[in-house]
């Protein structure tokens, strides 16, 4: 009787996500979520590919490229819709957003470095999964922004810092910002949407707030009570 011989070939390796062809040449938003317990230990990390620059973003990029709030080529002052849903036509008050000015507000059209407790602008998170407000290029606010605090359903919004630029030498580069959040609400909170908003003088010398991106997550990020989350939005350029 012959001994049976069983051979196995084991190949091990890291499975890399397949790069989608349509990303070549694209600029997308990396959405990176890291959860930490009260001891600072990472309990979960999530990555999603965001896509959703909004109309306000391309309008501001257009104005930025012209260094002016009123693109004469199109015959009228350009309007942005603020986070309250009001259309605001640009005026000379917006100069500081695109040029050297006083008061430190230089080139702040994409400014999103909100500090602790600020929920009017910066990286913002919400609970809407698209039921309340379907995703649309003209979205001007999150569907259900989470309020700042430690009450029920609230997150404590923290500070913002830069994600320095980096590249892989071959196919992509990225840079962005990150913001911390903590959950002291007494219960878990599901984050279903994320975006970033900016603020500056636009139509008058009163600060206006404009949402520039909004993504609804494929899978919600659950922030357990007592844990902290950092949410990063990275501008990733594929070539």
């Amino acid at each position, binding site marked *: 009787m012959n001994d049976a011989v069983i051979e196995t070939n084991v190949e091990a390796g890291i499975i890399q996500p397949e790069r989608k062809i349509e990303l070549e040449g694209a600029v997308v938003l990396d959405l990176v979520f890291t959860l930490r317990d009260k001891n600072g230990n990472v309990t979960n990390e999530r990555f999603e590919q965001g896509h959703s620059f909004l109309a306000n973003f391309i309008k501001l990029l257009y104005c930025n490229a012209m260094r002016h709030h009123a693109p004469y*080529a199109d015959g009228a002052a350009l309007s942005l819709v603020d986070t309250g849903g009001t259309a605001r036509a640009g005026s000379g008050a917006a100069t500081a957003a*695109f040029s050297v000015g006083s008061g430190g507000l230089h080139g702040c059209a994409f400014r999103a470095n909100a500090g602790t407790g600020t929920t009017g602008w910066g990286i913002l998170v919400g609970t809407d999964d698209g039921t309340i407000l379907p995703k649309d290029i003209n979205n001007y606010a999150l569907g259900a922004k989470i309020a700042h605090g430690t009450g029920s359903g609230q997150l404590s919004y923290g500070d913002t810092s830069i994600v320095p630029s980096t590249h892989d030498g071959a196919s992509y580069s990225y840079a962005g910002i990150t913001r911390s959040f903590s959950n002291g609400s007494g219960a878990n909170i599901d984050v279903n949407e994320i975006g970033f908003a900016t603020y500056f003088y636009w139509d008058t010398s009163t600060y206006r707030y404009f949402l520039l991106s909004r993504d609804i997550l494929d899978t919600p990020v659950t922030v357990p009570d007592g844990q902290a989350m950092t949410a990063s939005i990275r501008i990733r350029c594929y070539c």
Partner: protein
Amino acid sequence: MLKAHLKIIKEDVNHRPSVVADQPGRSFLIAFASLTARQMAQAEDGCKDSAGQVVTRSECDAPFHMTSCAGYGRGIYMGFSVWDEGYDADEQGIVIGTDSAAVQPDQYGLISKIESGEIAGQVMYYGTCLYGLTIDAGTDTAEFNVEALFHNKSGGSININEVGIYAHGGPGSDSWPNLQQYCIIRDVLGATIALGDGEYVRVTYTISIAT
């Protein structure tokens, strides 16, 4: 998602136009990410200007300024007329070059930019303008165009293999002429464009988003 599309029309000495390039833009460079993040964070992020110098400034003035036409994009030269204000400016807006080496994400400029002028190896730059911002809520898309006109008056033929956009971003504390140029896009053409003496090319980037 933000993308760019590149279209180039050549006009011969008898003003007969022909499309000589029509391709997806492939190459937003690290400067685009860096300048965006720097403005978002209002913080330092060492970024190389088009000369390869690291610029470490905490704030940035209009980091995507592309129009070489006195700061305003009026789009008035549709059809190859000339706007004098953008004349002979090769440090800002759409630029062209001769090198065909592949794009890498950390490149900071064209590899062999053609200078503006009328002597051998040069092409006249007639300025860059922006126009045509449209928002289509039905398809959740939006776009605008960045366009420049070039004229070969060098007396000989010149090959164009690379195209890009130099954005003109200044640091918060400085002003003209101490502003830096940053190459935010570089593309290598699918086929060389031989631009004969007396011929024009109109280069158009369509910048678009799809939500």
